[in-house]
């Protein structure tokens, strides 16, 4: 085989992989469901800069006593989210398997259970869940308001496998670009 043909194969394979990766992720984004998750923070400026703490969501801690679905979830959890009248999505059920749903019109977001907190009189623990969308921050503080009482949210694309891809921050309805750590 001539050297130019060999080089063409190498470049072809590598570009196919890069373009394939782009195509796959683009398709995933096109077909994903966008959900708006409430972010728990005292001051939106706490989200600014690469040294900001990981983002905590309203669904980062889930009291199993208040949710439908499975009780014996271990290691992985598929959290069923439902849109509320105010536009935010909240957890309505937790499953140990990605194929199950308790309600119609919901989205399943996959997460890893990091901790179990017992102590509730009602018996079931509160689980601490990480969804892989926590390590993001706002690169520049320009226009980011300070102080408490602000409405902070994250728009997350959830693909058909339950993987969450963080898209943008929203503070009092205004969009801010995010950066992944």
């Amino acid at each position: 085989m001539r050297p130019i043909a060999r080089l063409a194969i190498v470049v072809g394979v590598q570009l196919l992989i890069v373009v394939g990766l782009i195509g796959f992720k683009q398709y995933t984004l096109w077909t994903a469901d966008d959900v708006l998750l409430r972010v728990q923070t005292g001051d939106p400026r706490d989200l600014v800069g690469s040294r900001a703490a990981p983002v905590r969501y309203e669904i980062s801690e889930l009291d199993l006593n208040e949710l439908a679905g499975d009780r014996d979830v271990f290691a992985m959890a598929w959290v069923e989210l439902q849109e509320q009248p105010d536009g935010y999505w909240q957890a309505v059920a937790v499953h140990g398997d990605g194929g199950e749903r308790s309600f119609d019109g919901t989205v399943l977001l996959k997460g890893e259970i990091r901790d179990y907190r017992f102590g509730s009189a009602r018996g079931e623990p509160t689980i601490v869940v990480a969804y892989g969308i926590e390590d993001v921050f706002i690169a520049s503080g320009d226009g980011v308001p300070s102080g408490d009482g602000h409405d902070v949210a994250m728009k997350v694309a959830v693909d058909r496998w339950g993987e969450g891809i963080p898209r943008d921050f929203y503070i009092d309805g205004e969009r801010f670009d995010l950066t992944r750590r």
Partner: protein
Amino acid sequence: MCGILQVMDEIEYRERMTRDVARWRREGLLTEEQERRILARMGAGERQAVRALRLGWIVTGVSIVGALVLAGGVTLFFATNWQEIPEALRVALIVAGIVAAYAVGYALMYRYEMQRVGSAFLLLGTLLYQAGVFLVAEIYNMPVDSPWLFALAAAGAFPLAYLFGSRIVLLVAIAWSIAWVVTEVISRYEDTPEFEASFLIIAVAGIAIYAIGRLHTARASLERFGEVYMLAGALVTLALVYVFSFRGIWDEIVEGVESYSAPPLVYLAIGATAVLVNVALFIRPADRERRIEAGLLLGLLGLGVIVATWPDWTGWAIAFNAAYFGVAAAIVVRGTTSGDERYVNFGLAIIGLGLLTRYVDVFWPMLDQESTAAAFFIIGGVLLLVVAIGLEWLRREIIRSMPDGGDRGGDRGDERESTLPPGDAKGAQA
């Protein structure tokens, strides 16, 4: 094209010969007069010509370092300015960078006959491709520690390694493959009771890579790749055996501080690797060295099965120490019997590291007092010097007793610097 390749072969041969002759002169095998006559015989009698020929490996080294540094710089530039560049332009820059590196490499190699620098550009192209995979992931806010990204980075490098006969690109591809296994294990089993046991999968992957290397050596055209696989596989397995040789890990497992439960994937990996080792043995069953090697590999896999099934035994640290030093000794013996100095040096280095580790392991807890700290360093230093003298003496004795005087290692070591593939695939040198 054939003419150019024949000229390149001749240059490669002369470069290698000038280096060998210099080494033989240093070792006292040749007199100065004999060295001069050999060089004159091969048309390199002029001092300047000899110097030019001996510069070949420096060009290779500098080119490779240059490619690595440039790839690092480009990646750093993108990483720091990533957010300011529009997404479409980011993708275009990645693709353009890959294509440009390959185009320059090809032109240098086949138009301007600068094989060494040209092949470094091919290496640069692959490194840019691998950086590109992660930068694309960054565009889509994917976690950059996703195992799939490591697998894709490896998958794109293998065709270049094989089609252009480049061993350094193959080493890069194997390194990414190992990184894939490591990230896969971590992402699957982190924070689970199976986490500690799952590291056996990485050790088994090392043995599998070694067996793949052994399979390569069955064909003359692939033998040069086999050595790379075997080196990488041996390093991975030894690194894991080394980690398991520490007592602290086992103490925590036995005392129940760390839970330990082997996932089914451990057994599956061990089974598949055992098949691979047997297939490699089946190719040349009459070879005594192969049978011993296969026995050693199967012994390590057997150890993996036992430790995965019955972890709560207090003697595992000793067993893994025995395995570590046993493998190191086997490498030295193999070097002695095959007359290959490289194996002897590698095996002795592993033994040295093991001895140093055990010394620190034993005496580290006594370091809280100043007097014992001083004694630690003094005794340690003296012991190291004594061990070094012993190892050097042993090494010389072993090399002296080799069938062909331990020459092979040096020759083959030089061969490694030239990465021209056999036949007409003489492209890449990196």
